């Protein structure tokens, strides 16, 4: 684990020294939050919209922004740079377990995601959003977002390792947009049309979004929170296993 942290620190330095890659992950989710609230807040006034639990529409939209921020997967693009520049081979020629080569970047991604999610939630708090589930809910909110970031960057790393192409990896990141929009993004699931509701039910991101939303709008409702954590646990284990397998067979 200490070797994974050594590589994680290097990946964090890399992110810190490339602010032009980090800043859009903060700016774009906040931009979408402002735009979505601006477009739909009047349709859903807090006084007469039960699913808002007394908060403004911004509180309902915040999970979308958190998930978007966690789904940039810039770590996978840095990995492609390592591959193209030959540094990845340098790391592969060291006797560290192959799992460590994968974990280093994933650890760094989780730290970055905690930072970014915290900033976004704090900006939300400044603009009147509250985390109804309290301090523990805040921790769970940031933690679940960070875990999703790890899952998603794991997925993008698979593309990076397979294609070794920045363009393909970048395009792979766009997969998140259909996943995001096939969720109860603007209204709760029961208000979606039947086909959309079916699609959302089969979309794992739905359960993440509902868990995050529940933490913001309600007290700790474990029946909503746990499915979100179950999704990241299952997908996280799958991504880690696939990444390790890919790196072991990397030629």
């Amino acid at each position, binding site marked *: 684990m200490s070797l994974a942290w*050594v590589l994680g620190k290097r990946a964090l330095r890399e992110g810190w020294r490339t602010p032009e890659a980090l800043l859009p992950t903060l700016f774009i989710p906040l931009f979408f939050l402002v735009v979505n609230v601006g477009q739909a807040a009047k349709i859903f006034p807090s006084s007469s919209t039960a699913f808002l639990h007394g908060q403004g529409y911004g509180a309902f939209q915040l999970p979308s922004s958190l998930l978007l921020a966690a789904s940039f997967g810039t770590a996978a693009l840095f990995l492609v740079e390592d591959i193209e520049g*030959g*540094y990845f081979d*340098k790391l592969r020629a060291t006797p560290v377990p192959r799992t460590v080569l994968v974990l280093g970047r994933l650890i760094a991604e989780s730290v970055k995601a905690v930072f970014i999610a915290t900033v976004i939630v704090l900006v939300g708090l400044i603009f009147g959003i509250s985390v109804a589930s309290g301090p523990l809910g805040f921790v769970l909110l940031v933690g679940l977002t960070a875990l999703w970031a790890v899952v998603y960057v794991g997925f993008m790393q698979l593309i990076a390792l397979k294609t070794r192409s920045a363009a393909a990896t970048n395009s792979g990141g766009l997969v998140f947009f259909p996943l995001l929009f096939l969720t109860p993004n603007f209204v709760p699931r029961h208000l979606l049309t039947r086909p959309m509701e079916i699609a959302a039910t089969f979309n794992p991101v739905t359960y993440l979004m509902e868990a995050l939303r529940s933490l913001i709008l309600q007290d700790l409702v474990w029946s909503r929170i746990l499915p979100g954590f179950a999704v990241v646990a299952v997908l996280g284990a799958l991504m880690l296993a696939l990444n390790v397998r890919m790196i072991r067979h990397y030629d």
Partner: protein
Amino acid sequence: MDDVAEVVERKPPAPERTGTSAAVQAEALVKHYPSKTGVIEAVRGVDLRIEAGEIFGFLGPNGAGKSTTVRMLTTLLSITSGVARVGGVDVAREPDAVRRLIGVALQEAGLDPRQTGRELLVLQAQLFGLSAHAATARAQDLLALVELEEAADRRIKGYSGGMKRRLDLASALVHEPDVLFLDEPTTGLDPASRLTVWEELRRINERGTTIFLTTQYLEEADQLCDRLAIIDNGLLVREGTPARLKAELRERLSLASEPTLDDVYLDATGRTRSRVAGEVQEVSA
């Protein structure tokens, strides 16, 4: 010496070593790549034996199989068939044990441009099992060895080509490897930087490190290597000391004067050249 002691301390149980004292040994080494048009036979049965302490040169035209061979020997590429051993350890069966024995500097110095030279060396040393303290000390020693102390805390993206090569070389030495693999270590360097790298390689070799280097510069092979092999189209076509290879060519072609290594190379790879007034006119396959 503390850092070296620490490397030894942290090493896992000694790997199974077989065969004799050869630093590098390959038997019928083959690498095939699948392609849309069939199978590409990049290496087609290479046999090599490099003794401990040698500087061994591996020459060949572009695409001959030099880098593929090096990548197989350094665990970076799977072996289609055949056996490779480094320090008596089977490359395919015990890759981690082999990685502890070797240092690798590949074509296109593989460095992280966002780190400083010192950070890169400290990280590399830690990945080979040194503690943070020992890694810092080792990095300082290596920066002195490759004369990069002044640039140590600058980001690598600002380094010149020669500085990058020297740093890459230093990063391959953090764990004092038994065998150093260098893939075209001086390609793209100006003559002064090339001489500096040669000098460093001689110093490293004098300390007992076996060096396996690929190069396209015949003068480099002539100057540095105790023995060399020429690979063409995936097969070894010559092997021996530079002097022996030249003598063999002179004898076989009944040449009046001593041939150069260029002549040996061109003869071995089936290429020809015509000289007009002492200048190279044409090289054709």
